């Protein structure tokens, strides 16, 4: 349960067209991540699905029925907000119980679900606290708990991890992934962080200015970015994009090569440049290289043992099978 279909959905605020006609199918049980730079319309899209905003035109179907005009409460969706949106005047227990109370669920059933959700989320000891007394991660879990107990058709996450610190974020990422494995419920997850998208998604939807740039599994997007935008957006550090002669040699308007697909040497190579900064992460080292005559800065990833210093000359050779070629229109060339 939880198949969501968007048909020719558009959204305008006054004169501003935020989402041009857009079609999207989300299969039952899928973990879909909407990713894109800020202002790309991904949150708006999520809110359209949630029913918090009206679509300007088009249809939204949930499980085969047209939900375009249904109020949020009737769509059987649960949402986890960026700010957690916990009710500050209620205890954790009451926060989690609230949707069930609104649905008029019997008390004992409510209690059963609260207990099981609390157990699953490690919240049992905090049930009688107020949100203000919890840490950020705990609040996040309460928000998730509140979403789980409804047993919704789909979960909607609106940048749920952006208010957490880096370490917590990694932990919560895992928890959400595990949750998805366990519940096998459709999840739609909005983020601007492509690492989250890559690690969690079954399917990634890359958005730019309301347009879908590409839909596909994380590895498809990584390996075969449909256009320059996706190529530049997915992957960390970013793909090196080169125009001009070097590209023309490969019969393309632009070529892209990921930092990890470049061999380095202090002797010889296809390209040559000067190391400006080297970032040692221990396992890996990133070199930011200038004066290559190709792009302003190239990023190269090498193993931790390779040691170049500021000012050293570095030689680079791209792996031919990992070279991405793009045409004048920005689209990938076969």
């Amino acid at each position, binding site marked *: 349960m939880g198949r969501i279909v968007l048909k020719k959905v558009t959204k305008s605020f006054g004169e501003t067209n935020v989402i041009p006609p857009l079609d999207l199918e989300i299969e039952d049980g899928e973990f879909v991540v909407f990713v894109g730079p800020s202002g790309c319309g991904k949150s708006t899209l999520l809110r359209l699905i949630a029913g918090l905003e009206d679509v300007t035109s088009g249809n939204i179907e949930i499980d085969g029925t047209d939900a375009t005009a249904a109020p949020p*409460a009737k769509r059987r969706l*649960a949402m986890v907000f960026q700010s957690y949106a916990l009710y500050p005047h209620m205890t954790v227990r009451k926060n989690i119980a609230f949707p069930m109370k*609104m649905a008029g669920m019997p008390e004992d059933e409510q209690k059963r679900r609260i207990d099981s959700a609390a157990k699953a989320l490690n919240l049992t000891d905090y049930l009688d606290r107020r949100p203000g007394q919890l840490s950020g991660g705990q609040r996040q879990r309460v928000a998730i708990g509140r979403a789980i107990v409804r047993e919704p058709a789909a979960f909607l996450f609106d940048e749920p991890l952006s208010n957490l610190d880096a370490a917590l974020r990694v932990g919560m990422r895992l928890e959400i992934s595990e949750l998805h494995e366990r519940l096998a419920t459709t999840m739609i997850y909005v983020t601007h962080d492509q690492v989250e998208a890559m690690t969690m998604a079954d399917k990634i939807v890359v958005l730019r200015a309301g347009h879908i740039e590409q839909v596909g599994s994380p590895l498809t997007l990584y390996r075969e970015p449909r256009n320059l935008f996706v190529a530049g957006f997915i992957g960390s550090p970013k793909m090196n994009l080169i125009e001009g002669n070097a590209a023309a040699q490969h019969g393309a308007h632009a070529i892209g090569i990921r930092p990890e697909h470049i061999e380095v040497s202090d002797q010889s190579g296809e390209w040559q440049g000067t190391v400006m900064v080297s970032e040692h992460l221990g396992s890996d080292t990133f070199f930011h290289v200038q004066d290559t005559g190709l792009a302003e800065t190239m990023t190269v990833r090498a193993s931790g043992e390779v040691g170049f210093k500021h000012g050293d000359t570095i030689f680079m050779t791209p792996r031919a099978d990992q070279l991405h070629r793009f045409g004048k229109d920005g689209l990938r060339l076969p």
Partner: protein
Amino acid sequence: MARAITPRQKWTFTLVAWGIGLLIFFPILWTILTSFKTEAQAIADPPVFFAFDWTTENYTTVQERSNYFHHFMNSVIIALGSTLIGLAIAIPAAWSMAFQPARRTKDILMWMLSTKMLPPVGVLVPIYLIFRDVGLLDTRIGLVIVMTLINLPIIIWMLFTYFREIPVDILEAARMDGATLREEIIYILTPMAVPGIASTLLLNVILAWNEAFWTINLTADDAAPLTAFIASYSSPEGLFYAKLSAASTMAIAPILIIGWFSQKQLVRGLTFGAVK
């Protein structure tokens, strides 16, 4: 500021502040003291501060002349009634303006506030005639209506500023959780805004309690609140300072006590969200 100050500075501040505080409070203190004096002591020169024969006879005299509790109850009913009805009307309105702002929202708010600037004397006669025709003269319900209307803009504005501080996410969460609009307002918005609502309530009770133009002009006796009670002391009858003081003390004491006890909420209420 974090820097420590010397005890000497602290004592200086204490003395100056207490001096000014007592000076500002003095008229009230003096009124209360005078209310326990005899009329002759009340005008004694040089004035006596504490060394007089304390008497409660003024209070007895005042009570004999007009039934204090009747007027007191009227004040309570009018002040509380108008504030509660005002809140019931203002909460939905403030919700609309805070969470569904439209292009005209700001103008509507400003317009509402500007109705507060209409000079009451300019419209007394029309209102009087209307009240006469619908039989609302000298009724508590009539005064509750007028007080509600004249304070409504302030109530709405104050609530609006509080509501705007509430993250809209939380209301959306409630909506996602299946709450209807009514449930959203009752279970989520109102409890979250309790401090703001409390201070709005307080300020408006004070304003309604002290309103003296409409309350005097639209009542005779049945619905006359304490402002009318005090009006019969507004010119002297022979020696009257002590009696005036007693009546004044009786009129202001309830609201003074309430005000003091709820100072914190009130301060918040008075700031109109201008001060974070």
